[in-house]
């Protein structure tokens, strides 16, 4: 008796749940997971990344969402490292049950998150520039790799500044060494010579012996790739204090840091896929919308935050093309779609990476960046030859 009754209650409950479940999808939002370094090394840039994602989601929702569904953001702190990323990805993928991951993170965090994304079989759009060659059927990248960033600076120095002897200085970590290893190979490929390649540990702050070596070697040009933030600032200040006036290409500086450094940053060359000075209607509209939404809270949009904005639109386009959020179909569609954003038209069509228009800029006396030259559709090269598209 009791058994039958409880069974029937159970069945009724199950029926209710089934009914709820079938009625829900129309109202259920599509969840976008954003694991990002709110604490740790990336904490300076992370707020601008989150703002970009918020603007994109708000704009899309205001226009009716994606296939009639609203977008919702789930932001999680990955503490800029591997251990934090495992927790963040785990909770986003298996507890919050997000439909996609879109984020700018450190390479350590990306590498720690990828196996979890693979287990959850979700699309993951990585929006940070990085050292390249991270390949997974679930991973798409819409930011630059060394093959896209380095050649504009080296070519400009070689052609316009008649530089043939280069000196390289970096921080001793994967990105610093990776960038300079590529730079060295590229300089030698175009017939130049690398006179020295020097590294200081990440927490080091006295560059004196390296600067003395640089002055002793008397190169034509200098290219640096330090960790962002403090090491970059100390190196630049000490270079200027030592009277170094060589053509100076900095692979790690962004507009915000350059502005803060004041006079010391003047004359530095940088290469990026986004600078605020891009003269296009899409960029102007984007900057105006950011200003309107965040006002005084606005973190200056940059080369790490703008790809996040575009990636949300890329995901929207892929879902619309796939006709739903089914991961396999979306992953296939991501390679085929393109979006028009502040950086121009972006398609992640080359082995899950994107050909990008790169800008060579020079820091001015007022801290602004003047675009000297742009290089349209620079190819990311052979990043993942084993992936089909």
């Amino acid at each position, binding site marked *: 008796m009791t058994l039958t009754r409880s069974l029937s209650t159970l069945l009724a409950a199950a029926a209710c749940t089934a009914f709820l479940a079938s009625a829900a999808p129309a109202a259920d939002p599509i969840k976008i997971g954003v694991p990002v370094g709110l604490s740790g090394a990336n904490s300076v840039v992370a707020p601008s990344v989150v703002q970009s994602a918020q603007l994109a989601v708000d704009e899309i929702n205001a226009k009716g969402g994606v296939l009639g569904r609203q977008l919702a953001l789930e932001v999680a702190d990955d503490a800029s490292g591997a251990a934090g990323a495992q927790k963040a990805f785990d909770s986003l993928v298996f507890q919050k049950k997000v439909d996609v991951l879109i984020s700018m993170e450190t390479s350590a965090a990306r590498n720690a998150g990828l196996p979890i994304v693979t287990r959850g079989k979700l699309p993951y759009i990585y929006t940070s520039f990085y050292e390249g060659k991270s390949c997974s059927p679930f991973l798409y990248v819409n930011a630059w790799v060394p093959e896209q960033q380095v050649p504009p600076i080296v070519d400009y120095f070689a052609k316009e500044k008649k530089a043939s002897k280069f000196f390289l200085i970096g921080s001793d970590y994967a990105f610093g060494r990776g960038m300079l290893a590529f730079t060295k190979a590229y300089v030698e490929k175009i017939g130049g010579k690398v006179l020295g390649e020097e590294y*200081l540990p990440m927490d080091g702050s006295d560059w*004196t012996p390296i600067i003395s*070596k640089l002055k*002793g070697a008397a190169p034509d040009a200098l290219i640096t790739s330090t960790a962002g*933030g*403090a090491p970059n*600032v100390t190196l630049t200040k000490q270079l200027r204090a030592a*009277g170094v006036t060589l053509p100076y290409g900095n692979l790690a500086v962004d507009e915000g840091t350059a502005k*803060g450094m004041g006079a010391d940053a003047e004359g530095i060359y940088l290469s990026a896929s986004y600078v605020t000075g891009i003269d296009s209607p899409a960029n102007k509209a984007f900057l105006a919308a950011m200003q309107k939404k965040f006002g005084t809270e606005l973190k200056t949009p940059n080369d790490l935050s703008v790809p996040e904005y575009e990636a949300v639109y890329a995901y929207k386009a892929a879902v619309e093309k796939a006709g739903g959020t089914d991961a396999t179909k979306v992953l296939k569609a991501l390679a085929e779609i393109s979006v028009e954003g502040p950086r121009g038209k972006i398609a992640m069509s080359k082995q899950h990476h994107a050909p990008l228009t790169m800008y060579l800029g020079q820091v001015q006396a007022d801290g602004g960046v003047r675009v000297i030259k742009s290089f349209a559709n620079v190819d990311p090269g052979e990043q993942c030859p084993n992936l089909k598209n």
Partner: protein
Amino acid sequence: MITLVLDIVTTAAILFIVSAGLLVVFGVMKIINFAHASFITIGAYTALVASRFGLPPVLAPAVAFLVGGLIGAAAERIVVRQLYGRPLDAILATWGLSIVIGQLVTLGFGREVQFVPAPVSGTLAIFSEDYSSYRLLLVVAAFVIAGLFTMLLNGTRLGLSTRAVIMNENLAQGLGIDSTRVRLITFGIGCGLAAIAGALITPLASVDPNMGLSWLIGAFMLVMISGGSLPTLGLSCLVLGGLQVLASTFISPILGGLTIAVLAAVALRLRPEGFARA
């Protein structure tokens, strides 16, 4: 060659400036102030605030000394005083204090890297070599700090009491010297010196909440092997700083970063009491 010599001298001067405050506290109180790095940071942020208020950069170290000294004295009253008999606990407590200060600085100023303009810029020609004038200025600053401190220790009543406390605290107390007050003032001066160091190195470095940390281990090692005397500290800075520059120049800067720690460990193995009373 001239550049190398200048590199060694200026590096030694910076190391001396950074470790002087730690030495003062260690010499008198026989405790290691692990919050030293935070007081360097406090000095740097004081210089930052001073420059925002439009104070001339020359005054920044003086203001930093005041701010660092006052906060240091307060910390002594609240945290350190209870732990004089327990040097190991004092290390932990000052380490905790440094975490608290670091977080407060982060709350107040944010995590981002900030900038203080240098009072002098450009280079000076020395024997036909262009060399950073600010680094040369730091050599002068190191001598000024050493000079002032020697004067304070040898030429004033406070210095006399301090030396008495260093030599034999019980006897000093018996003679009516208020050793608690001496300790309070010494800790304040030590923290003030750390803050001066922070204000002095900022034009060469960035200002961020963790900036002091990279100097702590080097300063700690130098103070340990110098065994508590100012002239020996100067000598250790010159020898170990010199070897660091040589290793960085001729082998690799990454190895250079290890020089002081490794050599100091070896030196302490051979001579655990340091080199002061040789």
